[in-house]
């Protein structure tokens, strides 16, 4: 889970992923580099620009690992590549849905399906599901949940902003209700695919 999550409304939350300017006129984000991390190739390096992308990848990876039956494929790596075609808000939830569908399409054995749902809380406390980019920017808090298909259990949550404990529970309940629409869409989409053959 991301570090920005807080349960008490009194504590001021960081708005996370912003830039850390190094000096006057420098608007580059934070860098990190690691070298020689793989033993097999002659050379390897990992370069990180901006912390947000890495944590998003880590969140998606952890969700997939919780659901994929990795014990059936030892000594095998499963790589999921996600390419953003257009970002209209709720990007993390969309990435989670795409990753789930791709794993199903590849025939990777899974113990359940999962989906991502985003909630935004604006300054009045109104709850908006699946916010647009504009709504996300103006919201006081944006919460993304990954839920599994068997019992709508919470697999992953990533939150940014200021919200109370009661609001968290409310958002989670709304996300669980919304997830059944996503799973119904998965089912219809897969049925359509199999009906062609």
């Amino acid at each position: 889970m991301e570090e920005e999550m807080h349960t008490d409304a009194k504590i001021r939350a960081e708005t996370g992923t912003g830039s850390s300017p190094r000096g006057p006129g420098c608007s580059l984000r934070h860098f990190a580099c690691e070298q020689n991390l793989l033993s097999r190739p002659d050379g390897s390096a990992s370069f990180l620009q901006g912390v947000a992308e890495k944590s998003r990848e880590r969140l998606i990876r952890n969700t997939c690992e919780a659901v994929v039956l990795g014990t059936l494929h030892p000594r095998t790596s499963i790589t999921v590549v996600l390419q953003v075609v257009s970002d209209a808000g709720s990007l993390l939830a969309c990435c989670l849905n795409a990753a789930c569908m791709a794993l199903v399409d590849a025939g990777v054995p899974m113990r359940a399906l999962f989906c991502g749902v985003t909630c935004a809380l604006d300054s009045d406390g109104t709850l908006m599901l699946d916010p647009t980019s504009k709504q996300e920017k103006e919201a006081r808090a944006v919460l993304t949940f990954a839920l599994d298909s068997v019992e709508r259990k919470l697999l992953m949550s990533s939150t940014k902003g200021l919200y109370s404990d009661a609001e968290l529970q409310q958002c989670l309940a709304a996300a669980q209700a919304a997830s059944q629409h996503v799973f119904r869409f998965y089912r219809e989409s897969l049925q359509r695919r199999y009906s062609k053959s």
Partner: protein
Amino acid sequence: MAEAASVAAESLAGSRARAARTVLGQVVLPGEELLLPEQEDAEGPGGAVERPLSLNAGARSRVRVVCGPGLRRCGDRLLVTKCGRLRHKEPGSGSGGGVYWVDSQQKRYVPVKGDHVIGIVTAKSGDIFKVDVGGSEPASLSYLSFEGATKRNRPNVQVGDLIYGQFVVANKDMEPEMVCIDSCGRANGMGVIGQDGLLFKVTLGLIRKLLAPDCEIIQEVGKLYPLEIVFGMNGRIWVKAKTIQQTLILANILEACEHMTSDQRKQIFSRLAES
């Protein structure tokens, strides 16, 4: 409407376990649980069914059901792990409740013991050939696993050759091993695949469809041109016809058949037969 009813059912209980019998032929999703026939009586409507206690515990007939690809045992139920249509095959003779499996469409092959596959020889190290079969590891093939091969009479296999063989060892924990002879020591069509021809890849579902008994596609293709064809369960097909053009036409037809309906296919065949 059926859709409203199914939505209501989903909202009530996340996913109730359904009887496997009722779901046959339908699309099942990962995470669903299926009940085997012997458990249906116990579940009953509401679940609070009184059953007389029996002193002889073994009297209840136990049906041995085989859990095929896409299903896993989860307690005393079956857990679906892949998306596809649920199929069932009645036992031919004797005991057993038959086989349940999920018919899924995928492109990635996972080695299974007994499958006949087409592999490409990638390396020759000592007495073992390394053969790429499309799985996560190359399979190993000993030079003695060919018909009539002895220590002095080695088979003529080079790197880059195509091999048609079957797996004798294929599980998740070990490197897959294949051979080109059957249990009697005869080649039975296996071995190095001849010169020329074209190797191409299709999905696993198409291979199974083409290998099903009485497949129309193969009969129609056979009437078109004389050809040699080898199907590997790992999604690879090798085709050879008299000329390169005919070979390419056949390869294109087989690749396209997955997405065509039978009418479209008949149209294409009739057009080709005319020309």
